[in-house]
């Protein structure tokens, strides 16, 4: 794994500027700035429920920011026309947390879906491409299976094959390691790295799995309370001065994120009892 520091090769593929996003009255993002550089694996980490999936949806144009901007290859995503957005989405692939394979279609149909939506390729070409993608994830031969017949790991891999069906420039992984056994995690991590090395795929990984993410990412952002708490390469991050980042990375029970829910102490040493 190359320890690529801030390369200034070209403009970042994704540029998030002063993003503000509310859900109802809750602040999800309060002025977030981050860049996703081309050809790099960028990790976005933070506690559960901070809206990391929301960020991917904002990048993909499924949600609109309340203020601020999200740029994809220099063009503003919220301001794209329907056609532009359709085009942009063919350059992005997304792997959802649950795989999100279409349950009423076979594996083959699932992987062919983006191809059919964006291209008018003849059926035999589509068959070749599907075989190619499935081979890349190690599942060639599984074309006729239905998603319900696949294990969790196989499910994710087929979803990955579908995400790269159109040879996108950007691929986003939403919690790829969540709830998987070590072997599957290892397989996925290796696939992510291989795809980046072989295809130069710009990669975003949203995760709260510290070890796996730090082991493959080139650059990491730690987000909490709607703000970027810290950023840097994995080694920079481990030495980061922020107490929150340290607590998060080391998995400490105590730190800026308190353990106790209640604010009043249960027991004070000088007389007085429980509340």
């Amino acid at each position: 794994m190359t320890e690529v520091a801030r390369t200034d090769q070209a403009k970042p593929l994704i540029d998030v500027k002063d993003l503000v996003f509310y859900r109802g009255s809750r602040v999800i993002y309060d002025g977030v700035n981050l860049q996703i550089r081309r050809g790099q694996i960028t990790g976005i980490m933070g506690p559960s429920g901070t809206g990391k999936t929301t960020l991917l949806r904002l990048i993909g144009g499924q949600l609109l920011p309340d203020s601020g901007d999200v740029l994809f290859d220099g063009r503003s995503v919220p301001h794209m026309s329907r056609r532009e957005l359709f085009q942009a989405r063919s350059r992005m692939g997304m792997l959802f947390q649950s795989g999100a394979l279409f349950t009423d279609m076979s594996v083959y149909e699932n992987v062919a879906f983006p191809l059919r939506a964006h291209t008018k390729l003849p059926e035999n070409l589509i068959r070749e491409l599907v075989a190619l993608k499935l081979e890349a994830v190690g599942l060639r031969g599984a074309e006729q299976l239905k998603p319900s017949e696949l294990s969790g790991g196989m499910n994710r891999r087929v979803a990955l094959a579908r995400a790269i069906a159109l040879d996108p420039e950007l691929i986003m992984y939403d919690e790829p390691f969540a709830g998987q056994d070590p072997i599957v995690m290892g397989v996925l991590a290796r696939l992510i790295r291989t795809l980046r090395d072989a295809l130069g795929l710009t990669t975003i990984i949203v995760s709260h799995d510290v070890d796996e993410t730090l082991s493959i990412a080139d650059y990491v952002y730690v987000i909490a309370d709607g703000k970027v708490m810290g950023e840097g390469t994995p080694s920079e991050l481990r030495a980061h001065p922020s107490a929150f980042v340290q607590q998060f990375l080391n998995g400490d029970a105590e730190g800026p994120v308190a353990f106790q829910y209640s604010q009043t102490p249960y027991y004070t040493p000088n007389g007085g009892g429980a509340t």
Partner: protein
Amino acid sequence: MKAIEQLGRNTIDRIVGVGEAAQLLARTLFLLPSWRGVGLFIDQMFRVGVLSLLIIVVSGLFIGLVLGLQGYTILVDYGSEQALGTMVALTLVRELGPVVTALLFAGRAGSALTAEIGLMKATEQLASMEMIGVDPLRRVIAPRLWAGIVSMPMLALIFSSVGILGGKFVGVDWLGVYDGSFWGNMQNNVQFLNDIVNGVIKSVVFGVVCTWIAVYQGYACMPTSAGISTATTRTVVYSSLAVLGLDFVLTAVMFGGLS
């Protein structure tokens, strides 16, 4: 005070829901279908229409049998059992055909639609479809909506026909009403335009309403298993109430003004 606040909030949420549902309906109905869309539509016609056929035919048959039986026992007291054909036919064609078909549809096909769409939402299938660049309204919702609207009147017609045959079986073959007067009276008193066509119009309206409710509840549900189950229940309840309420309104408009 809190309770009133809560009530107000609930009401506003419901009204917002109706608005969202209306938006969904408008956006979906006016989408032009593509060639691929026809295949999806046929697929849904199968899941929604053909698979409901069994329950419709069996229910229609039994209701027809009961109508024949009850009708006979009531009319025979007035010496008017020849009117059995008229009674069975008008009851079915004007009312029971469209209404009972709609209620059965809501319970079977409607709840299945809601559960299916809700599950797709909960497993992020709708979101991933959108990310790939395919509009889930067009791909998933529209074929189902049209399938419901088209199959409802067909099912209602089949229901009424089977019911009339059932009534005939009880009245003529079993209880001895004269075959000629059974059909003759019926033909004299059932009008194609006023009764049958109005019944079809009713079932089209019910088709729109029931399918719309089913599809919206699935689309807008909370993406959890509890959310799906709530949505499914809501589909059946709201559809049933809507059908019964609309039936009164339509009946008053269509048949109430009869001189």
